[in-house]
Every structure is written in structure tokens, then in C-alpha cells.
């Protein structure tokens, strides 16, 4: 009763949250229900409810598809390599930035490091095409050093390095902010005391700075792992072409092609659902491992 009275007296508060709740139900929860089409033969005319059930037919089709293994391994490799190579960079960057004592200098360096984050992914991929084209500046350098021009954007073997390195170029600076902030919390007295005890700079980074940001690192790695199969679908769609598809065809580009270019909604939704399940498994596995290593602190 008391609760009802609260609601009656504070009805404005409920009107304030209403739009967000309604939009969430329509655009987040209705699609969750819509996932059912992965188990049906969806026809727009019959709607989600009216379409015929086909059980795991679409999943079986996907698992038996000739490119299933290729898609799965491409996705896993692209994202696992991306994580292994990209994850440590912002941390190292933050530890290095932390050594710049002059505030103004630090600000200026950060200003440049963050800049690529504000460039759109279309432009970044566009820049790759321009810079790494057969007649572009990078190949000019290759030729100058006596090599043959390489077709970076169409050879399958260059897809992964181009994708991952450009990702680091664009995102590492911005991702380091959170570690820089965490490092600002280190007590300078700790460093002074350690220096008096004869600790070198590298020892202090290893034994004072790094442990301080360990909880943040743990949270970031779990979040990153949960997105491992989702990672960068947008960019893969931009970099994908018929020539490099041997490596560039990942689950997200496949979902896009099947769903939007061939309008095969049910099959596409099944592939995507498979992807989501793997993501969740990754999230929980990494969370479990991190909890073990991090004295019981995970996020889930």
C-alpha cells in the first residue's frame, strides 16, 4: 500500500522513465523474442508467430555448410589475435604516459594519441586503401627498399595484420585513458619509499604501478572477451572483398550478406544466435579464469 501511495505521489518520476522502458521493450526485448525465427522458416507475410517451425534445421545447415569451419576459425583468429596484440598496448601506453611528469607535455601527447578515435571507421578503412594501394606511399617505400609492390588490401594473408594494426592505431590511445586514470590514484609516497629501498624505475612500474591497475585490467579483459565474436563487424564489412574473403569472411560479414543481401532472415538469425552463444561462453570462461587469477574478483 505504501508503495502504491509512493507511485501515486511521484507519478512524474514514472513518466520520466517511461520512454526509456517502452523503447527498451520494443527495440531490445521484442528482438529477443524475434530470435525464434532462427527455429522457423520466417515469412514476412505470416509473421513471427505464424511461420512454420523447422527446429534446428538452420543450425544444421550452417554446421554442414562448406565454409562453416573457415568462418568459425576466421572469426576466432581475427578476434583472438586482435585481443592478444591489442589488449596490452593501451596498458603499456598508460604506464609510459605515467612517467611523463610535466602535465602540459602529457596533455599534448594524449591529444595526439586520442585523435584517431575521432575518425570514422569508414575513413580509417579508406585511408588504408589509399596508403596501402599498389601505387600508394607504403608500396613506394617497399619498392625503394628493393621489394615488389604488395597488394595489401586484396591479398588474404594481409587482411588480419591490416585489420588488427589499424585497430590498434585507431583505438589504443583512447583505450589508455582508463588506465591513466587508475594510475593517477597511486600514492607517490609508495614510489618514494621504494626508491629509498633501491628499487629501479622498472621495478617500481612492475611492483607498484601494475598491481594498482590490476583490477581495471581484469574488468577490461572480461568485457573484451565477451565481445570476442562480435568485434568489429562493421570494419570487416568495409574491408571485405571477393579477393581477400578467404580470411576476411567472418561470422558478422556472413550474417550481413545472408541477411541483408539475400534476405534469408531465418538462416542469418540462426548464424547470429550461434555467435551470441559462443560469446557468452567466452565471457563466462574468461570471467572464471580472471576470478581465479585475480583473488575472486570478476564482473559476472
Amino acid at each position: 500500500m505504501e508503495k502504491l501511495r509512493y507511485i501515486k505521489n511521484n507519478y512524474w518520476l514514472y513518466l520520466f522513465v517511461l520512454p526509456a522502458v517502452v523503447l527498451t521493450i520494443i527495440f531490445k526485448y521484442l528482438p529477443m523474442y524475434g530470435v525464434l525465427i532462427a527455429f522457423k522458416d520466417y515469412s514476412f507475410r505470416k509473421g513471427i508467430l505464424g511461420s512454420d517451425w523447422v527446429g534446428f534445421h538452420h543450425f544444421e545447415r550452417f554446421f554442414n555448410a562448406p565454409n562453416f569451419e573457415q568462418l568459425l576459425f576466421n572469426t576466432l583468429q581475427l578476434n583472438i589475435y586482435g585481443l592478444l596484440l591489442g589488449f596490452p598496448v593501451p596498458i603499456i601506453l598508460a604506464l609510459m604516459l605515467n612517467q611523463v611528469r610535466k602535465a602540459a607535455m602529457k596533455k599534448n601527447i594524449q591529444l595526439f594519441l586520442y585523435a584517431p578515435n575521432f575518425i570514422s571507421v569508414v575513413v580509417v578503412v579508406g585511408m588504408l586503401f589509399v596508403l596501402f594501394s599498389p601505387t600508394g606511399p607504403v608500396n613506394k617505400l617497399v619498392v625503394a627498399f628493393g621489394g615488389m609492390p604488395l597488394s595489401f588490401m586484396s591479398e588474404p594473408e594481409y587482411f588480419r595484420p591490416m585489420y588488427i594494426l589499424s585497430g590498434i592505431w585507431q583505438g589504443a590511445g583512447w583505450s589508455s585513458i582508463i588506465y591513466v586514470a587508475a594510475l593517477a590514484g597511486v600514492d607517490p609516497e609508495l614510489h618514494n619509499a621504494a626508491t629509498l629501498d633501491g628499487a629501479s624505475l622498472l621495478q617500481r612500474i612492475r611492483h607498484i604501478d601494475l598491481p594498482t591497475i590490476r583490477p581495471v585490467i581484469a574488468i577490461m579483459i572480461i568485457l573484451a572477451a565477451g565481445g570476442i565474436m562480435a568485434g568489429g563487424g562493421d570494419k570487416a564489412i568495409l574491408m571485405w572483398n571477393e579477393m581477400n574473403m578467404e580470411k576476411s569472411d567472418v561470422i558478422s560479414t556472413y550474417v550481413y550478406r545472408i541477411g541483408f543481401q539475400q534476405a534469408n532472415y531465418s538462416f542469418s538469425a540462426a548464424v547470429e544466435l550461434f555467435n551470441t552463444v559462443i560469446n557468452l561462453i567466452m565471457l563466462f570462461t574468461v570471467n572464471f579464469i580472471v576470478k581465479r587469477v585475480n583473488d575472486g574478483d570478476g564482473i559476472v
Partner: protein
Amino acid sequence: MDSIKPTKMDKVVLGVIFTLLVLLVVAIIGPLIYMVVASFMEPTALLNKGLSFDLSDYSLEGYRMILSDDKIIGGFLNALLYSSVFTVITVSVCVFAGYPLALDDFVGRKVIMTLFIITMFFGGGLIPTYLVVKSLGMLDTIWALVIPGAVSVWNIILARTFFRGLPKEMNEAAKIDGASDFTIFFSIIIPLSKPIVFVLALYAFVGHWNDFFQSLIYLENQDKYPLQLVLRRILILNKVDPNIVSSIKEQAELARLSELMKYAAIVVSSLPLLVMYPFFQKYFEKGVMVGSLK
């Protein structure tokens, strides 16, 4: 400043760190500078000589083409419209939702919060979302771009954290004076909330401005394309606007013009954000910090 003098070895390490940082900065702005210089060059000269310091190799033709291209101007205006409308909608929805959720005695807070947070981990995915948007008749309209993504749980959490930090006493005093939640929100809370509104608005605008994927799946009519999709055509699909090239017959000239447009397009489209961002840097950082204190 450290009160204790660094050892020789530490100085060497510091030197290495500083050098590495400078190299990184160069690696980051090098390509950007290349783009800017190349955009002012004659494509044939750029192709044969690379960046040159010979003034006769420079030309403004690329910019002239970009700035007289209806598709690009149209895309720019579309993007401006979509991003502005999206920003207004998402910031209002998230700030409105964040306020009640910041109040300790708000009945139903836990349920509503859980409803939001679940969506951070589970989702129906691309295709089911598309079908909902489609069945609502939003395809090929601005609404498909500004409504489905308007609720950002992350932004609601940021807003809630901000409101939690405001003093509660004013609130209570106003209540005793007989003010409604509506009056309190608009005459007390909102005027104090400029920082968070500003941060959320910046994030929303930049995010939407740089996004191409939503428009790729939801828009069909090319006249409605925002800048990023127009850029995708020019930069990645390598297609020059047929209106511009209808008079040009030769393949070589076509290739030359398409090269010419690329650099200028990259510069023109990235410049507004890159020029503005140093002024807003502290606000962007503030957003990340508030978020990390969840």
C-alpha cells in the same frame, strides 16, 4: 616531481620511454599529415613523385570537386540532421530515465535497472531488430536511425551516477515547499546538469556522425544517405558520382578524378571533428572517468 634523484639507469629507461612516446605520436599523426598534404596535390604528380615540395604539383581541384558534389553536400546535411535529432532524443531519454533511478526510495528501481542491464549482455541481434524496425514501417526513414538506438544503458548509468552526486537537501526542501517532481527536475536538477548533458550529447553526436552501419541496413534511397555512406562509395567502393563524370569519357581521366576526390573527401569529412575535439577533450575524458567509477 620525485623528491629523490633518479639513478643513471632510471634516466636511461626514462629516455627510452620518452623516445618511444614521440615515435608513437609520429606514427599516429604521420598518416594524417600525409592525407592533408596529398589532398592538395595533383594526382599524377602524387602518383609519380609522391609528396613533393614543388608548388606546381599542387592543386585545389580535389576540394573543388568535393565541394561541388551534391552527394557529399547532401550527405553532410543528412548526417547533421540525423546526428542532431539522435542526440536530442537519446540525451533526453537517458537523462530523464537516469534521474528517478538515482533516487534511493524510488519504488521499482531494481526491476527497471535489471530490465536495462540485461540488454547489455543479451540481445536479439541484427536480424530480429531489423524485422522489428521493418514491421514498424520505419525502413528508409530517419526514425530507423534515431529511435532504435536511443536508449543507451551506459548513458543512463552515467546520468544516474551524476545525479547521485548532487546534494539531496535541496530536493527535500523543495518537496516540503510543495514542489512536484516535475518542477524539481526542470527548475533545480536540469540547470545543475549541464556537464553531464554536455558529455552525453558529445558522445552521442560523435558516435552517430561516424556510424555507417545503421544507415547501410536501414536506408535504401541514396538521397537520404549520410556522409559516411557517401564516403564509403567514394573511398571503398571506388565509385565516382555519375553526375560529375557523365561528361568524362576516358577511363584514365575517371581514375584520376576518383583518386583526386579520395584525399579531399577524407580531409573534409574528418576535419570538423578533429578541429573541435581538442576543445572538448576534457569533457570526453570526464565521460570516460565517470563511466569507470560505476
